């Protein structure tokens, strides 16, 4: 007994020491944080350490929709047009652009004196080569610019010739992933089937070293030619205020949280929302929230029970969006309820049409709709993955909703690459939960257009027709009624059931100033004090 007591006291002492150590550290950190407020000076030679959650598969932004490629590439490359903080299209590498009366020719006047990281000046031949590569390899280029052609007029003027006028062309050219980065003509010529082999852009940072699976090291491009307009979103003035950026690949979320708390990292991306409380109590670290995208349930419209619109409507009628989003994102701070496919800040695309069908949570009415549907008691399969916790949590909610309205359902859980493959076969499942990054136009969400053949296989002539009709309009004033109509049809047909808009959480050290986000992180105009 005496020995037991001695052991117990010994262990208690260890824990007490640990606890005291923590408190002392915490108060020290607070003290130093306050003093930094007064004495901190911005260092132009600072290194920004960013804990980044996923490995990069490629640094060719033309090729992929992967967010990791987008997030790093946008610091290196630029495009002709880009988006400002209101998601409006503005010139970037183009000084200006104009559209012909018939809408079939876009003329881009290039900025003079813009140099690539290899020291060569960007000229029309580079733009033509880059845009042709992008049109050939990117999903967006293939889908929206079939038959289009870029033509060099003179070294600083390029024309885009298209077969059919389209309102969304500038948005497609300003898209963020896969984005039409302008690279030297030689880089295009040396590219292989898996993409670029050299990574040269015109952006404020240049690639110094890519140590695959470990880090990507970018350095300030001293010859960078910035625009002079006020900085806004991805547009306007860009200044590289730190000398180096290290994207350190840290796949374990708890390591990212611990690392930003100790100052090992200055910024930690993709922080699990349940760590928000821990972060807010960490001295010297601020949580930053940004628009993460939209959360949805994607139905299999091609085969199985949800091919019947009545059952899709039954599920949507029973769905309580507030409860589902709380289950997925833990707290109301981390999501917003909204029925529109576009964010409210995307003024040209946001619509509240069909809002009455959103967030109903009406189980009784839903049961009635199930009765009226062709559902005959079979067990439905909800495909999901634990690689994205919010997808999994939403899938669990879907199972409960279905069971509440008398529909049997099971979860099929796979790792992400397996999930992606299983999802391509219509007989494998009935629905899955999915989040989509914000897109500049509704057309770029893959689940609307039947031609995209995205899993779920939306096949609505009405939606296809409205998508086409919108592109045929001369301006957004004319397009607005059609956008409303499209949103209403989406709520009636239900290719997906929109649940809400989720927020992304980034942890930023208070030594870092100026961090912003627009469909991904922005590291220019970001400074760090020592």
């Amino acid at each position, binding site marked *: 007994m005496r020995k037991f007591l001695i052991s117990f006291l010994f262990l208690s002492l260890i824990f007490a020491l*640990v606890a005291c150590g923590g408190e002392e550290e915490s108060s020290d950190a607070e003290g130093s944080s306050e003093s930094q407020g007064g004495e901190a000076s911005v260092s132009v030679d600072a290194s920004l350490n960013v804990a980044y959650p996923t490995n990069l598969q490629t640094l060719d932004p033309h090729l992929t*929709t992967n967010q990791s490629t987008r997030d790093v590439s946008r610091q290196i490359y630029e495009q002709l047009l880009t988006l400002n903080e209101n998601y409006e299209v503005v010139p970037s590498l183009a000084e200006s652009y104009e559209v012909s009366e018939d809408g079939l020719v876009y003329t881009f006047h290039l900025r003079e004196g813009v140099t690539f990281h290899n020291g060569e000046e960007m000229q029309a031949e580079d733009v033509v080569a880059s845009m042709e590569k992008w049109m050939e390899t990117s*999903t967006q280029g293939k889908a929206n610019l079939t038959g289009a052609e870029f033509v060099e007029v003179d070294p600083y003027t390029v024309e885009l010739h298209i077969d059919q006028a389209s309102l969304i062309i500038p948005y497609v050219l300003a898209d963020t992933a896969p984005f039409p980065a302008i690279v030297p003509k030689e880089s295009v010529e040396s590219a292989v089937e898996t993409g670029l082999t050299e990574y040269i852009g015109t952006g404020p940072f240049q690639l110094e070293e890519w140590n695959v699976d470990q880090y990507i090291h970018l350095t300030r491009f001293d010859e960078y030619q910035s625009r002079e307009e006020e900085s806004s979103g991805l547009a306007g003035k860009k200044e590289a205020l730190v000398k180096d950026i290290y994207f350190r690949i840290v796949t374990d979320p708890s390591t990212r949280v*611990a*690392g930003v708390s*100790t100052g*090992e990292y200055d910024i930690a991306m993709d922080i699990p929302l349940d760590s928000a409380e821990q972060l807010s109590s960490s001295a010297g670290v601020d949580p930053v929230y940004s628009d993460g995208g939209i959360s949805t349930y994607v139905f299999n419209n091609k085969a199985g029970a949800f091919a019947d619109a009545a059952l899709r409507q039954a599920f949507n009628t029973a769905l309580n969006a507030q409860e589902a989003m709380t289950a997925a994102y833990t707290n109301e701070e981390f999501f917003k309820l909204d029925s529109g496919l576009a964010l409210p800040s995307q003024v040209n695309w946001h619509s509240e049409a069909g809002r009455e069908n959103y967030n109903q949570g009406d189980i009784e009415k839903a049961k009635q709709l199930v009765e009226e549907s062709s559902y005959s008691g079979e067990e439905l399969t909800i495909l999901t993955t634990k690689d994205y916790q919010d997808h999994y949590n939403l899938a669990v909610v879907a199972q409960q909703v279905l069971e509440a309205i008398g529909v049997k359902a099971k979860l099929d859980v796979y790792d992400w*690459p397996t999930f992606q493959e299983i999802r391509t076969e219509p007989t494998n499942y009935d629905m899955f939960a999915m989040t989509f990054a914000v897109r500049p136009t509704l057309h770029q969400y893959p689940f609307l257009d039947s031609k995209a053949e995205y899993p779920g296989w939306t096949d609505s002539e009405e939606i296809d027709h409205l998508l086409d009709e919108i592109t045929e309009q001369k301006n957004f004033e004319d397009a607005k009624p059609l956008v409303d109509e499209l949103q209403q049809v989406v709520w009636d047909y239900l290719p997906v059931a929109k649940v809400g808009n989720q927020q992304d959480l980034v942890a930023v050290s208070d030594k870092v100033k100026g961090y912003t986000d627009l469909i991904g992180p922005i590291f220019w105009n970001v400074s760090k004090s020592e």
Partner: protein
Amino acid sequence: MLKYTIQRLFSLIPILLVVAVIVFLLAHMTPGDPVTVLLGDEASEEAKAELRHELGFDLPVYTQFVNWFTGVVTGDLGMSFFLKKPVTEVFADYLGPTISLAIYAQIIAIVISLFLGVIAAKKRGTFTDQTVMGFSLLGISVPSFLVGLFLILLFAVQLQWFPVAGYRPLSEGLWEHLRYLTLPAIALGMMQAGLITRMTRSSMLDVMKSNYIKTAKSKGLHQNRITYKHALRNSFIPILTVIGESFGTLITGAAVVETVFNIPGIGQLIVNSIERRDFTVIQGTVLLITVTYVLLNLTVDLLYGVVDPRVRLNRKK
């Protein structure tokens, strides 16, 4: 001895053949494809099919196996689809951190466990013995990722003695190298320490009962000389077996610790390659690990003779 070594090396061939077939089939039967990983979730089926064709991923599985295996026989393990390097080069790049980590973890495990094992044997049945055995049980049963997270919380976040994660190569200085490797090495070495402590204790207890130990005692030899010169050396064969086997486990089982501490080693390479379905790297790395494992076992077998002259193979009768 030479004949025995050559025989053992030849026995590698059927093992490698079986491993090659199984790994190839497992990799290719697992759903998921590298083209989707590369092009992204929203890429069209048409774009994926085009790239699959260009890279030869749409060839029949047996054709792909024959192509790959022909290369393996000639020493070419193929090119990594994502890393754009030969697999052997990739393996060499990632082996360094894992070897460093495994050696450091093994040293920690051996130092702790020999010390504790001998003490436990000497103080058999006492409170010290029970505490040591409790510690070793804890080491064996607590998963390494949990130990890792606990160490991060205590020594990196609270006390800030060590960095949270990361890796610095030896070229950046020994101190910096060890500073980054200490916590992961402890996390990884804990289980080995537990195993070796138990083996040391039980092996020492067996030897301590031997007649020659009693003789040594009766001759009036000092207790420490009996323990360390006579008992420990003679009880070392089973301990060496555990050390040898556990070193293999350290190399192959470091995946979790490497992920938690973000160390670019073989474990992380395999995890990342599985995530991106980089088939040639998965296949090549597993083959090379098999070779490493078999060679380690052979080394341990040969070391028996060094430690204990009674098991030397070339001893003439």
